[in-house]
């Protein structure tokens, strides 16, 4: 086996030194009746070339030559080449969690820079070293708000990503945390009067997403005015981090839960991604997840350490802020490199291109279909309502190497034949024109139909 650095003679010598007759002696603690007396039924040992071939075939089956209009929590932005060059360095790739600070300063400083950049980007005072993904970061942010307030009820906007809401419900269920959902209005945004009536003295927090699942930017300042007046915390989830290049961050929020996938992390069929929680300094001790802090060594030299660890499971065990025992260090590093490449000016320009593409697409689509929630400001996503079922539209687009918008019927049946379209900077004008053209054809001459064969 090519990963094992021992010759048969080495093994014999070692066994002899240990005083064992054979390797079986070392497995004696396992009662014989449970031992597996056969080979595992897994693929036979393969050559590297065979492995690469197998995955190439799978890769081919995934059809990578498509232009995609999918967003909905996973965004296709260009990834600068140096991201993979740098994260492939063995010292980053194959290092463990930086518990031993003296031999982990590289990882620690990189995380400190990540925390700084996320704080700047989100307009918050402090950020953690990252969480699993946006959905779990959002859920943990809500649990954090419950600890901060000592209250147990949560109000959630229905315009939060449906899978994020599902994760929250999954965590909430065993602890019997009541969740009250509030609807969106005709602009796809939170209805302030419904929000007012949903909040009770037992409410810990309000959870919103902005830009929300429909791509609409919430009026965070107005919502924060309500939450502050009513004494509940405001948790803002952000799934499209690139939006922060041009959209005002939710500075009025108490906790921000961000999915940083947009910042240089491959789509990778949904993971690994990179969640992160940012908050006010005063709330840091209730924040879950790892934190890196700056300090000095014995000679007064600047250095970095994992800090405030007493919040975590390995010390506080069942009283910990979370059971989380990892961050997404390598993925956070991708995000750090991405943010460094684009920087203060580039992030704005990048976001501006997204804004322009989506604005153009919206305008084109509006000629042949209905753009829902149109008057509200949006970033790079918008909802198109058609007469025809979007699955049918998408089936046709696939033939032209285009992946159409995400059909919303599964999550929002009330919106009818609606799909969520996303235009990042990677989508070309000609792809937009082709998609619009094909939609226009069918919208002009076809009545509303249900999908005969649903492509999803």
């Amino acid at each position, binding site marked *: 086996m090519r990963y*094992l650095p021992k010759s048969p003679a080495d093994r014999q010598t070692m066994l002899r030194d240990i005083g064992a007759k054979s390797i079986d002696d070392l497995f004696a603690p396992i009662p014989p009746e449970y031992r597996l007396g056969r080979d595992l039924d897994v693929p036979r040992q393969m050559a590297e070339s*065979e492995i690469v071939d197998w995955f190439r075939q799978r*890769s081919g089956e995934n059809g990578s030559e498509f232009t995609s209009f999918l967003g909905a929590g996973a965004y296709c932005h260009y990834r600068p080449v140096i991201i993979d060059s740098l994260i492939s360095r063995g010292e980053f790739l194959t290092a463990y969690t930086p518990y031993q600070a003296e*031999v982990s300063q590289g990882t620690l*400083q990189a995380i400190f820079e990540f925390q*700084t950049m996320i704080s700047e980007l989100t307009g918050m005072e402090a950020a953690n070293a990252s969480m699993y993904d946006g959905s779990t970061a959002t859920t943990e942010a809500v649990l954090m708000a419950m600890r901060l307030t000592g209250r147990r009820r949560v109000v959630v906007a229905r315009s939060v990503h449906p899978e994020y809401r599902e994760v929250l419900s999954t965590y909430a269920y065993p602890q019997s945390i009541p969740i009250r959902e509030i609807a969106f209005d005709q602009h796809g945004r939170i209805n302030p009067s419904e929000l007012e009536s949903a909040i009770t003295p037992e409410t810990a927090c309000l959870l919103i997403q902005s830009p929300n699942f429909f791509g609409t930017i919430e009026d965070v300042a107005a919502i924060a005015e309500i939450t502050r007046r009513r004494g509940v915390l405001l948790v803002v989830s952000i799934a499209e981090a690139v939006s922060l290049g041009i959209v005002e961050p939710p500075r009025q929020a108490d906790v921000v839960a961000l999915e940083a996938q947009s910042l240089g992390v491959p789509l990778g069929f949904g993971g690994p991604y990179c969640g992160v929680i940012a908050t006010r300094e005063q709330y*840091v001790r209730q924040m879950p997840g790892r934190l890196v802090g700056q300090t000095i060594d014995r000679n007064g030299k600047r250095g970095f350490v994992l800090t405030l660890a007493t919040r975590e499971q390995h010390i506080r*065990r069942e009283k910990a802020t979370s059971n989380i025992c*990892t961050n997404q260090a390598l993925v956070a590093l991708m995000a750090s490199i991405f943010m460094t490449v684009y920087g203060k000016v580039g992030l704005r320009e990048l976001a501006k291109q997204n804004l322009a593409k989506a604005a153009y697409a919206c305008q084109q689509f509006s000629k042949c279909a209905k753009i829902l929630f149109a008057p509200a400001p949006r970033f790079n996503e918008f909802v198109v309502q058609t007469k025809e079922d979007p699955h049918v539209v998408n089936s046709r687009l*696939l033939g032209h190497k285009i992946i159409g918008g995400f059909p919303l019927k599964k999550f929002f049946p009330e919106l009818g034949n609606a799909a969520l379209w996303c235009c990042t900077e990677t989508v070309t004008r000609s792809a937009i024109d082709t998609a619009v053209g094909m939609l226009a054809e069918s919208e002009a001459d076809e009545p509303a139909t249900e999908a005969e064969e649903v492509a999803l």
Partner: protein
Amino acid sequence: MKRMTRKATRHVSQNEGLIFEKSSPGKAAWRLPPLDVPEANPASLLGQAEREDLGNMPEVSEVEIIRHFTRLSTWNYAIDLGMYPLGSCTMKYNPRVNEAVNRLEGVANVHPYQPEKISQGALAIMKTLSECLIEITGMDAITLQPAAGAHGELTGLLLVRAFLESKGRPRQKILIPDSAHGTNPATAATVGYAVENLKSNSAGMVDVAALAAQMNEEVAALMLTNPNTLGIFEKEIHTIADILHSKGGLLYMDGANMNALVAKVRPGDFGVDLMHLNLHKTFSTPHGGGGPGSGPVAVKRALEPFLPRPVIVTKANGTLGFDYDRPQAVGRVRAFYGNFGMFTRALAYIMANGPDGLRQTTEDAVLNANYIRKGLQGAYDLPYPTASMHEVVFSDKLQAKKGVRTMDLAKRLIDYGFHPYTTAFPLIVAGALMIEPTESESKEELDLFIEAMRSIAEEVEEDPTAVREAPHSTRVSRLDEVAAARKPVLRWKKASNS
């Protein structure tokens, strides 16, 4: 250093500030293509929501970024540099073909919501890995959704809860041995269970009589790591399972130490009802400086209906797809389907090994641990003489007499060119030195490690202060963790820099 170390010497360690300190207006590492649609007017499109300023985000050039992160990287220890003997962390070699296949265009760039018709390759990777892991664990079904080991534990206890609820009520308690990882009690609390501690016996195993006495119909499950955190196989595992089952409870296995078992014995064959795996431990996906991990949960048939949504199914037409119609599912524990990038790597690892390679891997991992145990016996106290599997736990009892504790010994190991072992865990051993070499170490590297550890033990006798003040060869010496925690500085700020 008084002693010569055969492994490490000094190397270039360049000074490097924070990236923000290199920033100045006008430098850039980006260029966007010309816009092929009309320019957007942010003020009119966004109004009040337009952002004016990006604060202190850096402005630097590409070569500076490459040098910055490359210099930082040289300050890290890594498996690529040498042995990483962290107990219970299974720091094994991370094969590069895993990285290569994960970066194939059609693997790296698949959108999670793209139509199943053009996701068959991704689904096949998940399906094949699932089948391999089910076979390796001897279980009946699996979810790949959990993003890490602790997330797998959470998923597992949600499954326990849902299963018991379907039988009447979720019960109140989870039993956890005193040798367990901190994630176990933290997870139990997250899932709304009270934690009851289970004492180990003098051999370092579950006290079966005590378990029988503590077991009752309020106990939902026992969370057991096997081999446990002392590296000891729980010999009476089936009796343990029987005790739980007789009162309607479940046996949850924390698979952190699965590297001791793969291809030799299957948890499903010794009474385990459900367990999580750590793909970043047993199945060679890189730790990446603290993540991402992946924590699939394998279960017996009775628990299958409760697995998180969606599950992979083969459809009538032979294609693969996701089934969301799972009325008894616990819900979902994260968006999308899990850390897919780890699935490709784990599967590539399994393929590179095959059944014979996986068995040899396990045998070598156990051989290495026992070789170290033999090599260090006498120099360090071995609190539990019970046979070791893939890791061995010593204590600092002999060195403590000179005022040198496990953390000091660990820090001194750095000067010898090794990463420290796991210190002060498990909690049932005062001053623990928890050592797991994995299969990835050659005899030569193990000999160097043993030599280093024995040399440190001698240094403790001759010059304990030098050991207490170690490391002496790193760019920074021991850091002031007290100051860091009292006045946390969690980000760079312009003002503090002037």
